[in-house]
């Protein structure tokens, strides 16, 4: 399905502006659990959908925000291509715009780049209903400030994303996953050693005494490396199920009533006790814990990182790592530029965005 409802969305924003109505921007609601609780009249972007252009030889796809992520991924797969950053699909799968607004990347991220790395440009409506276009469809582009990447991961608090262009990459001809039993400390050491060794890595994770290493590339490349590393080859189906289960949080680990924390740490940060999964070669650790936010943030700060309460817990409190006061003040001023009345997704990212009115 293809539909351009940008005019309609613009009208709704202008109306909301006139009435000072807070708006809650929604794609498919697959990430409703994410971020702080925010209240507002629903502004549905789902109807603004369709792939606008896709030329496989350019390695670029442009699509409207409401395009179902699965539909977009199917179109890429048909041409043997994919989104490099391996976005998670929660619940029904999500929309293209929601994916960009949330800015999340999957297990491939340390090796193939993040979502924002792949964003080339986007069109959006700001809080005054102005239609804005930043960046473009080419990889090398330094005209104007890089606002399309600023909007990526902004959780819909700056503008309504209408359309975006992303860089895509060819799928690897072969993918294999190697499995090795080891404790957390040994796994972290091994991950850092492999990461230094110029290998065609595409994911490294550890869970319950098992280190999983995925290799992607052409047949020859992957099989030579396999011999080098040793370890057991995981069955293809099991490997696929593991990586997508990790990415989409469908592994048994994730079905729990305890709050789920996402710790972003230096890859080589020390092992620590807890009910956890290590992803991103050590740089992202999922922790299930009922400990206080202060304790968990202290733990991650001590290791040079940050912690977000990803699922569950107190969604009225600060779920994302609090910012230093000077940084928060700056982000409030940026919010003011895009959304001076604070209409969009009030408080979804931080309670203090929008700033004091």
């Amino acid at each position, binding site marked *: 399905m293809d539909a351009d409802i940008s005019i309609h969305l613009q009208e709704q924003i202008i109306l909301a502006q006139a009435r000072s109505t807070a708006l809650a921007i929604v794609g498919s609601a697959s990430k409703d659990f994410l971020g702080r609780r925010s209240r507002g009249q629903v502004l549905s972007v789902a109807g603004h959908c369709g792939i606008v252009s896709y030329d*496989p*030889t*350019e390695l670029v796809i442009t699509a409207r925000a409401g395009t179902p992520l699965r539909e977009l991924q199917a179109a890429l797969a048909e041409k*043997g291509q994919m989104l490099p950053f391996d976005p998670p699909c929660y619940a029904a799968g999500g929309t293209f715009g929601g994916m960009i607004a949330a800015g999340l990347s999957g297990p491939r991220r340390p090796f193939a780049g*993040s979502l924002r*790395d792949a964003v080339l440009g986007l069109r959006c409506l700001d809080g005054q209903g102005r*239609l804005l*276009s930043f960046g*473009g*469809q*080419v*990889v*090398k*582009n*330094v*005209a*104007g*400030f*890089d*606002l399309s990447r*600023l909007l990526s991961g*902004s959780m819909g608090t*700056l503008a309504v994303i209408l359309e975006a262009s992303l860089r895509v990459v*060819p799928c690897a*001809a072969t993918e294999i996953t190697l499995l090795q039993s080891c404790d957390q400390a040994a796994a972290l050491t091994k991950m850092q050693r492999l*990461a*230094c*060794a*110029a*290998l*065609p890595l595409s994911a490294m994770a550890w869970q319950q005494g098992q280190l999983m290493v995925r290799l992607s*590339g*052409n047949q*020859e*490349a992957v099989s*030579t490396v396999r011999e080098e590393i040793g370890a057991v080859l995981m069955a293809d189906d099991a490997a696929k199920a593991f990586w997508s289960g990790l990415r989409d949080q469908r592994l048994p680990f994730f079905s729990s009533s305890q709050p789920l924390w996402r710790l*972003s740490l*230096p*890859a*080589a940060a020390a092992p620590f006790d807890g009910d956890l999964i290590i992803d*991103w070669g050590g*740089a*992202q650790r999922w922790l299930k814990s009922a400990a206080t936010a202060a304790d968990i943030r202290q733990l991650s700060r001590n290791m*040079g990182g*940050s912690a*977000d309460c990803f699922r569950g817990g107190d969604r009225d409190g600060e779920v*994302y790592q609090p*910012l*230093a006061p*000077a*940084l*928060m003040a*700056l*982000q409030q*001023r*940026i919010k*003011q*530029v*895009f959304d001076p009345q604070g209409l969009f997704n009030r408080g979804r990212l*931080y309670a203090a965005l929008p700033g004091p009115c």
Partner: protein
Amino acid sequence: MSDSLTLPDCLPAALKNSLLALLPKQGLLTEIEELRPYECDGLSVYRQLPMAVCLPETVAQVQQILRLCYRYAIPVVARGAGTGLSGGALPLANGILLSLARFTRILEIDKENRLARVEPGVRNLAISEAVADLGLFYAPDPSSQIACTIGGNVAENSGGVHCLKYGLTLHNVQGLKVLTITGELLELGGDVLDSPGYDLLALMCGSEGLLAVIVEVTVRLLPKPKEVSVLMAAFESTEKAAAVVTDIIANGILPAGLEMMDQLAIQAAEDFVHVGYPTSAAALLLCELDGSIAEVASELECVEKLFFEAGATDIVIARDDRMRQRLWAGRKAAFPAVGRLSADYYCMDGTIPRHRLSTVLKQIKVWSEEYGLRVANVFHAGDGNLHPLILYDANQPGELAKTEAFGQKILELCVAVGGTVTGEHGVGIEKLDAMCSQFGADELAVYHGIKKAFDEQGLLNPGKAIPTLQRCAEFGAMHVHDGELSFPELERF
């Protein structure tokens, strides 16, 4: 340009005394002769002397300078090595030039996390040299890498020959420490892969010194690939060469570098460095492949076949280091080589979608004849980043103006085919008018808003990178709206 035109305003005495008190010996330059080396960056057609040059050595000193300038409302232009090609580091007559040249220390090399924490004045190449023993390298490699600084690279979001595969500066920087004009130190990112809140790290990349002064950079290091090969292929037309560029990518191959040179550039490079380029060819492609031994072998075979099928007249494969260096030597020396052909040259930097290469190159050729100005093309074909070098003689009355008009036309064409006016050199002072063809009044207003969010008084590198709305109105090229496109004869998509 005569000296009197570039003379600066007078540095207020009170500010001068405060600066003298805080800066190290020889850290404040105010004499005309001392200021001279700073009057321009790599785009030397624009020259201006600053009121003073400050050469601080510590972050605390930079902080104090900024606070003083803020208090006295004096504009500040940051400068790395001054190799920028768009006048970004051009001083202001009523401003201070803040050189980061003395910040040359590599603060930390973290092998485990594959990161290096460096001061902003560290030269790009110095990073790769410092970590070579560990089998690591810093990927972005602008041709100016022996001279340009990492701070300048971040400010311009610089690319290089290898950014087709490894990305731009943006993709390889993980943390920054920056100082705002009020002297506030902000930490963006760090040793982790992402940081909370809006992505200000991405915003800093390519911000051309308008938002904050970069005082520390954490870069990501990559393991050196095990195998590297370079193929050179000659073609009898630029169209054929351009078509293979698309074919290679379409075959799922992402070369480490994919560069193209046209006849004039090939000839100039060969005359200059004698590497054995086929001077009769209309176009030359250099394709670098890297990875594991097995990977490179199979990709090499595929690319060679594509070259052959596309009718390459000459294919050379460099498998060893010496031969590889040799093939690249001509490309790397191409700018100075072209410089020998003419009194002056003007380097353009538009990017276009790859499949428009042929069309755009053809049009440039037509204009080249119309304007009576020769053009050499040496560029990053893999990512559609053009560098037409327009040859001219500044001493011929009117020739610079003609060159700039020609350049402006090329940039407008880049925008019209879905590209951009600058791929990696930045807007600076040079492409302010071209920006008016790429963006509308609303986008420009948002850019000015962002600038204000960081720098309310407009003291950091004012007048660069983002044109005022008034300027665009006068220039009369505000945004190419649908329906009134500037190149109606071109097919759209």
